[in-house]
């Protein structure tokens, strides 16, 4: 399980706040990117979104490093950017959804299909809750939405997944 908060056995310490941006990038980029890949299901888009968010973080690092959760800020910017890009992409060309940018064997094909069918705003909540193990309050804070909205999105997402896999 990924850890949103610092724990002894954490493999993802997203609350780490190095002074130097380079250190922050080294510590955070892999997990930020991989989580974005899971949420967005598009490795190329995830890379672009992370690069854009990291660029903005670096441009204002003196401020961002003082935030309670710089990696959370990067997630948020990246997701906003990706959401905007997806909207534009959907508006421009109607094509089949792009496949994920990686081709490793899918661990649970049935569940994978169900997760892929979730709207992005529900999928991101599911990933933050069950991959990063964030609390509802942390998710609300990260996404800038009320806790009630997080609850309803999560509830609807799980309901939809149950309908598909159970």
């Amino acid at each position, binding site marked *: 399980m990924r850890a949103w908060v610092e724990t002894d056995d954490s493999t993802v310490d997203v609350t780490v706040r190095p002074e130097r941006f380079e250190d922050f990038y080294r510590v955070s980029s892999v997990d930020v990117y991989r989580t974005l890949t*899971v949420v967005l299901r598009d490795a*190329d888009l995830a890379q672009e979104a992370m*690069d854009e968010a990291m660029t903005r973080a670096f*441009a204002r690092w003196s401020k961002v490093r003082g935030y309670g959760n710089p990696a959370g800020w990067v997630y948020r*910017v990246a997701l906003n950017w990706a959401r905007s890009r997806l909207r534009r992409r959907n508006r421009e060309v109607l094509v089949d959804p792009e496949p994920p940018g990686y081709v490793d064997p899918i661990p649970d094909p049935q569940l994978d299909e169900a997760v892929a069918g979730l709207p992005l705003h529900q999928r991101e909540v599911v990933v933050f809750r069950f*991959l990063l193990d964030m609390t509802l309050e942390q998710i609300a804070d990260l996404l800038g939405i009320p806790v009630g909205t997080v609850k309803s999105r999560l509830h609807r997402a*799980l309901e939809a997944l149950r309908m598909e896999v159970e």
Partner: protein
Amino acid sequence: MLETRLRDYLEAQHETAPQPEDSLSEVMRLGRRRRLWKRTGTAILGAAAALLMVLGSASIFNAAPSVAASPMTGAELPVINEAPVILQGELGPAPQIEPAGTDLTFAPIDEPTANDLAAIDETIQIEGYTDPTVVSLGSIDEFQTNVYVIHDVEPETGNGQSSLVAIGPDYPQFVSVSGPTQNTQWGPSSSRNPDGDGFVAMRVPEDASWGYIQIEIDGATTWQRPSDGFIWVPYNAQPGETIVVTGRDPSNGDIHLETTIDPIDLSGPLADLRAEILSLEAKVEELAAQITILESTRTTADAQTRAEIEEQIQELSQAQEQHLNRIRELHERISELAKKQDS
């Protein structure tokens, strides 16, 4: 149990996701460029807007469109000479925008909170460009604090917009919006900041998945990754100098563009006016800083001191306004000179 299954699945997906590219150096390079724009501050913003107006009427942008041949197909690729038209406006309600003449308003998406301002850069909804129901999105680069450059605003007409907007504390607000540009073809455009440094912007197709693109300027080769549909190539052009830019995507190999851009002549009267504008802009900035300091001390002062402070603020504000009026006159003068030069 669905939750357990979900955790296992997500964990496996996370673990099997590829490693990201190490983009640290590129991220820092772009970040530095954005910081540089930030540091240049309001003075450059004002002068840049003026210069953009000048450039919009100068020969560099109004030259007849040229063409370049695609090495793959031999077809002629149009070279777009973009001519941004900056419409100056006051902070507040959106003014009319050309060419549609409809109101343009900026509003955030997805129930933003004040905290979203830091992260909202890419999430701007533009309504009512051609129809009240139309929603268009612009990709945004931070230009300086609270001021954003929006590229590729795409109303349903299919044309894009290059826009200069300011998003203040009472967001949404804006300063100015430019006229239309095309966004589906390759083409160079250029602009300069008031220091005489410049850059060439080459627009790349939005729907293409571009990697790094090879850029050649005067025989020197660099690589750049498109950002928001553009690649930006810095150069230090001297009046009369010709810049040759070649763009090529090595992974696709079907785009090749070469163009020559003659930098606008900034010598003579234009240069003098430009220098005066910069000087005045610096004074305006200095006055603004003094006002800010006074305002910060006002709240804790006693009644008498507060009255004195308010009087000082008023004097400084009046001086600031005089400078701004003079700057506006200079902008108009520059426009007139540029038109004469062009004709």
